[in-house]
């Protein structure tokens, strides 16, 4: 038959470690690539960074002063080396708009974005996974068709439109939720920072009223994102589950009398969820930057909103920092996902013949 592809070695730890090392090396390369790409994209922006920094009505001297101060008159290669060496030291430059270190500004805003992202994904998983499983298990039924219909609507949904719709009905119309303003009412002081998540910090510090308020402010943006994300998760779970249910080993499980529910959950879901891990990763990755729209719409003080402000004021230094941060988070996330994937799938974890 075919050439031997199977080196069925029973290596476990070595395989995993080597896998991780390779994965990590690739990630470093990717991060480097990200910085390069972003740096050069931002450098082609029309406009002179020095005069942008100097602000409107700046005198020529001031522009020159600024250019010197920020090394903007250096050759681009030198600027790049400077930026890279700064980057390695955790310096993403200084915001044009605020004169503050970009990294610090981003890190200040990150918890807000992460809180929004995590709750949205959580909601999406809670809706998407069970519905996807049910839809797959009852393939072709009205339930399946409705789930698919929902999935298409969800993945076709324009976030900004859905957000507006929700604001219109639930904030302005019915008044059930606060308007799209912030994480907390104006005037409510945030709870003492532990995690940066107001919901959790509120509970930790015993300020339950604040935590509850944070939940109310989270509700609409989380639902907006959760709805859209749930659709893609549902879609993926359904496909993966159908594939799993269609597989030979499910047929085997049936043939040797594994009870149906157990078969569905143990054989089906377990295997189906392996590809779903990737989807959730993609979704989370999407959230890390894709929430610009939602953060804009709901005035959410996160990194997405920061990026929007940076764009609308041509604060390219901040924008650059944001994009790099998002890229790096995404890369880290991917490592985590790959590890999760590897842990879930013995074919990867244990090396050997698995060819994907």
């Amino acid at each position: 038959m075919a050439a031997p592809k199977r080196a069925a070695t029973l290596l476990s730890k070595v395989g995993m470690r080597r896998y991780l090392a390779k994965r990590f090396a690739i990630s470093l390369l990717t991060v480097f690539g990200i910085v390069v790409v972003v740096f050069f994209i931002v450098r082609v922006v029309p406009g002179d960074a020095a005069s942008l920094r100097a602000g409107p009505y700046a005198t020529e001297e001031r522009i020159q002063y600024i250019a010197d101060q920020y090394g903007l008159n250096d050759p681009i290669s030198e600027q790049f080396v400077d930026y890279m060496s700064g980057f390695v030291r955790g310096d993403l430059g200084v915001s044009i708009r605020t004169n503050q270190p970009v990294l610090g500004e981003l890190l200040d805003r990150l918890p807000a974005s992460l809180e929004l992202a995590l709750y949205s994904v959580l909601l999406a998983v809670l809706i998407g996974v069970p519905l996807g499983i049910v839809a797959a298990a009852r393939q072709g039924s009205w339930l399946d068709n409705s789930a698919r219909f929902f999935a298409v609507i969800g993945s076709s949904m324009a976030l900004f439109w859905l957000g507006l719709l929700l604001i219109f009905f639930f904030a302005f119309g019915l008044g059930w939720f606060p308007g799209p303003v912030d994480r907390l009412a104006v005037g409510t002081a945030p709870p003492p920072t532990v995690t940066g998540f107001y919901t959790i910090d509120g509970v930790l510090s015993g300020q339950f009223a604040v935590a509850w308020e944070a939940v109310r402010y989270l509700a609409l943006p989380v639902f907006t994102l959760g709805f859209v994300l749930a659709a893609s998760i549902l879609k993926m779970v359904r496909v993966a589950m159908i594939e799993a249910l269609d597989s030979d080993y499910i047929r085997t499980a049936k043939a040797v009398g594994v009870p149906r529910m157990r078969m569905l959950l143990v054989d089906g879901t377990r295997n189906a969820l392996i590809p779903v891990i990737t989807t959730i990763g993609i979704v989370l990755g999407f959230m890390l930057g894709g929430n610009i729209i939602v953060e804009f719409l709901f005035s959410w003080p996160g990194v997405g909103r920061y990026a929007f402000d940076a764009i609308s004021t041509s604060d390219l230094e901040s924008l650059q920092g944001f994009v790099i941060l998002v890229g790096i988070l995404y890369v880290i996330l991917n490592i985590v996902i790959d590890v999760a994937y590897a842990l879930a799938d013995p074919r990867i974890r244990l090396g050997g013949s698995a060819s994907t």
Partner: protein
Amino acid sequence: MTGNRLFRPLLIASVLLALALVAAACGEDAEPADTTQATDTTAPPATDAPDPDAPATTEVPAPTSEKIIVSLSTDINILEQHLFRSTGSYAVTRALYQPFLDQVYVDEGGARLGTSEVVPSPLLDSYEVADDGTATFTLNPDAKFASGDSITAADAVYMLRRSIEAPGSYIPLLLPFIAIDSPDAFTVVDELTFTITPNQPTALFGRFMTFQVFGPLQESLANEQATEEDPFAFDYFTTNANASGPYTLTSWDQARGEVILDPNPGWPGQVANGGIIVRNIPDAEQRALLLQNGDIDVAVGLPPRLVSELADDPNINVYTAPSTRVNYIGMNATTDPNLSNKLVRQAISYAVPYQALLDNVMFGFASTAGTLITSPMETYQGDAAGIYTTDLAKAQALMDESGVAPFEVELAVQNARSQDQEAAVFIQDALREIGITVNINVLPQGEYSEKLNGREFAMFFTEWFSWGDDPFYQMTFLAKCGAFTNFADGCNERLDEIIAEGTFETDQQRRNELGLEAQQLMVEDANRIYLWSEDWILATGANITGVTKDFTEVPRFENLSKN
């Protein structure tokens, strides 16, 4: 089917989840007042938190007055008084740095409107101007920085020098109008006395001294924080302050765009409230909503349409007053050859639907601009100068006369300026009538100002507001040949002569004559389309009093109080 039984758990789980969501949503309905309660119970601990910059917060004897929440439309990004970049920053620095002079205010429609008469601010014991223009300032010995240190003449002079010498400050732009060109103009006389000696007496000197850029800054602290690269400690003062103004900086949450200000115990004046929470809420609709709900007390920068809606709300007070602000579209003849034809520019000026702009963009919260000398401004004589009104027939006739074929032109607008964008739509439609295709180009602020400075735009929107309300000052910036901010690049030598004469002219009759001639020249040249003159507008909750409009039209906090 057996399936039903087996899948029921999953099905039920999903349904329950959905129900839980709905329930969570409905649950909110039962406790509409919850938000405010939460605010009340949780706000105090945070504001009581000890702050090194404001050790005396708790000593303020204003237990009954709560903090007033002011929402702004812009970022609060730099608290450095000489580098501020946005209205938000300006408002906060005005609260932190007290200038030596202030205006005299008159009550009108519940608001305190500034007049052009100036008086010593609480920082001063006395202020005198000699005939040669030398001004002598004597400090109030009770005036202290927030740290408790006294404000000395040395601090005042340090600040004045800094404003000239520090690279990056744009204060030097102001100084020619008060005839100062070197730091030697500032002298410390004794611990509490200093003088400013301009090259000649000027009408604008007193007015300029009311601007926050001339509020004292502690010299010793600045020197302490200075570095070799940053000898004026800009970095430090970008995020910190030792206030000389009515408030101290209690906290600044950049991510939320929130600054909390508490009354400054060292400030010798009277603060009418228990502190201010300044919030950046960029979205105007949200500011309006929050104001309606009573979540905020003061909303700055509401678009006219919303203001007109809010004016009917009994829970909201809308304060408006005419302003000398001018909104225009520059037409740069050198950038676009078609615009070099004066007849084309005049045709365009006739085509613009001025009334539609006043009604449908500004909703009545603006007055006719006419020329750079706007209708609320001193020496305005619109009809006499023959200012433009919409007349499409005339416009078409002028186009025909010009012999210029239908052409395309780009109209640049800033992305953050929605009224300009709206006006652009009307103007685009109107100019189509006379064969001119307008392409609207919306640009972010930074790129916009850079291109504007570079004279890259053929047609562009600009708003200008001259602190100090002076027509010649206004024209110096916008119409003088070769002026840095004369973005339309129009140049009329006669106009330059008028400006030169008018700037230091003190005789009102002569000023009026010069003004009329200038307006006629501007109408004739038609270098700009004078769209409207925007009113000063502020919306507050009905329980707020003490709204103040000064020369800068930036919100002032210390007189606000809440009943």
